[in-house]
């Protein structure tokens, strides 16, 4: 596969929580580059900094030091370089949640369409795109259902549809397959790969799930906040 644009470029990123005796160094001197079309896994024992790194890339957490460039745009260099981080997330980043976190008061379709609504799409176009994505993820028949009525797998796919709705080029997922059986987990990963290729996006997934390790282009190991080459 031809190498795509660099979508994520993390240089010298460190993050610590607390000070003095309670200080925890969650990330130390992390460098990471991810290109379009890549599907990579973040691995490591619990507490090794995987979620922290994902949050830094997702602009949810400010690093203590370092530089972050997303889709060619420098967003962090010692401090945030953009004030409207939410707009940045809306346009560039899709999150697939561990607990899928759909809004309980919206239907499956609305949960997807709300992202497009926020991004300024006309309502009918947003609905059509939401429909199309749900069909594509084979949950089109559940479009009018509220999240409480969806099975775990259905809810996860709706959440994926929501993450993809505004065609972000960076998709971040924290254990997206934890709640799924291995067959469904494999299907979700195939799907993510297909999307990465089609939309020229990159996918960074935290996972413990050895069954799906072979589906990734790269496995990145974290230990005590440092990248450890496998």
């Amino acid at each position, binding site marked *: 596969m031809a190498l795509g644009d660099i979508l994520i470029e993390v240089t010298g990123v460190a993050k610590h929580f607390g000070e003095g005796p309670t200080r925890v160094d969650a990330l130390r001197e992390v460098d990471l580059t991810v290109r379009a079309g890549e599907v990579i896994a973040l691995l490591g024992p619990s507490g090794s900094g995987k979620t922290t790194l994902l949050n830094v890339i997702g602009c949810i957490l400010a690093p203590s030091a370092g530089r972050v460039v997303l889709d060619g745009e420098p967003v962090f260099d010692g401090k945030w370089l953009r004030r409207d981080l939410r707009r940045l*997330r809306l346009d560039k980043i899709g999150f697939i949640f*561990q607990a899928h976190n759909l809004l309980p*008061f919206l239907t499956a379709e609305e949960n997807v369409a709300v992202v497009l609504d926020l991004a300024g799409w006309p309502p009918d176009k947003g609905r059509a795109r939401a429909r199309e994505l749900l069909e594509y993820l084979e949950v089109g028949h559940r479009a009018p259902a509220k999240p409480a009525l969806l099975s775990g797998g259905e809810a996860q796919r709706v959440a994926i549809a929501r993450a993809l709705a505004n065609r972000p080029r960076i998709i971040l997922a*924290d254990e997206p397959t934890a709640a799924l059986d291995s067959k469904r987990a494999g299907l979700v990963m195939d799907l993510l790969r297909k999307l990465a290729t089609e939309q020229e996006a990159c996918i960074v997934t935290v996972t413990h799930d050895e069954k799906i390790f072979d589906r990734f282009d790269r496995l990145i190991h974290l230990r005590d906040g440092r990248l450890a080459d496998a």
Partner: protein
Amino acid sequence: MNLALKDIRHGLFRFVLTCFGLGLLMTVVLAMIGIYNGLVADALAIVKAPAADVWVVEAGTQGPFAEASSIPPDTRDAVARMPGVAAAGAITYQTLEASHAGRTLRVYAIGYELGRPGGPEQIAEGRGIATSHFELVADRKTGLLVGDTLRLGRDRYSVVGLVEDATNTGGDPAVYVTLADALSIQTKLDPAAARVQAARGAEPVKRPTVAAVIARMEPGADVGLLVATVRQWKHLGALTEAEQEELLLVSVVDKARRQIGLFLGILLTVSAVVIALIIYTMTMEKLKQIATLKLIGAPDRTIIGLIVQQALILGGSGWAIGLALILTVKDNFPRRVELEPFNAIVLAGIVFAVCLASSGLGVRAAMKVDPATALGG
């Protein structure tokens, strides 16, 4: 996509119940305002009824409502001849108990001179008093109907007409009789008692007195001049209509008014706290969803809109339910409940402000929420 409405629809039953609860609270608030107004209106109704410009009363008294006043009936002739006076009438007020339909009826009997100021202005049903004896016009609240008879003192009176909203400050409904009848009720004892008195050689009949003489002025005439003229008589005093109303508010209804006013203040405070609590809780329950919204990129404006719109819908429906309820039940209150559109608007303003302020609390909490909390699992 309106998130506020979608969320309300999602938990509709609970939201409606909350609105209804708030509505009941608003009903009580409005009832209290209505009772307060009713108290003032009732108190002033009796003073305003004769449409007087000047009240001539006993010297040194603040009669005839705040204090007892008695002056000779012929004062009226003197007042009528004074400069600028268009019409004058002597008037009496007495609280009487009569029995009607098997129960004791407390009435506020107003005696006035036929064809002179002081009688009922607007007859709601039947007619005004036409003959000088044994007819009466009653307030509807007495429960009397046109054609009924009522025994007052030694005589039976027939009800010829009904009026509305004529009660004294204690809430007793008024009955109008002629001055002659009122004086005879006042002075004539029942026959047995009169015989005993006569046997003792007492003077058989007390000298009749009236409570006040009311005067209406000719257009443009000087009220101050009349008041000054009346005060030259050693035994008379005079009050203008405005003084009389002020006096009544200060002396008679002031305590009750302060009591209700204080209660109303407490109620409004309680309502404000309840509204704030409901809205704050509503927001706190949604913090995780708000974190999710932030994570997917919703701007503050969307989140503030969600909270503020729900708060305003809640407050607005509570207010509307309260208003609808009080308008439905207000005539079933034993005392007059009077609501002006102004009161409802002021309450709406207060509710609006409270809702905005308490959604401000919720908004503050929502703004502080870290989008990362949505990721936790």
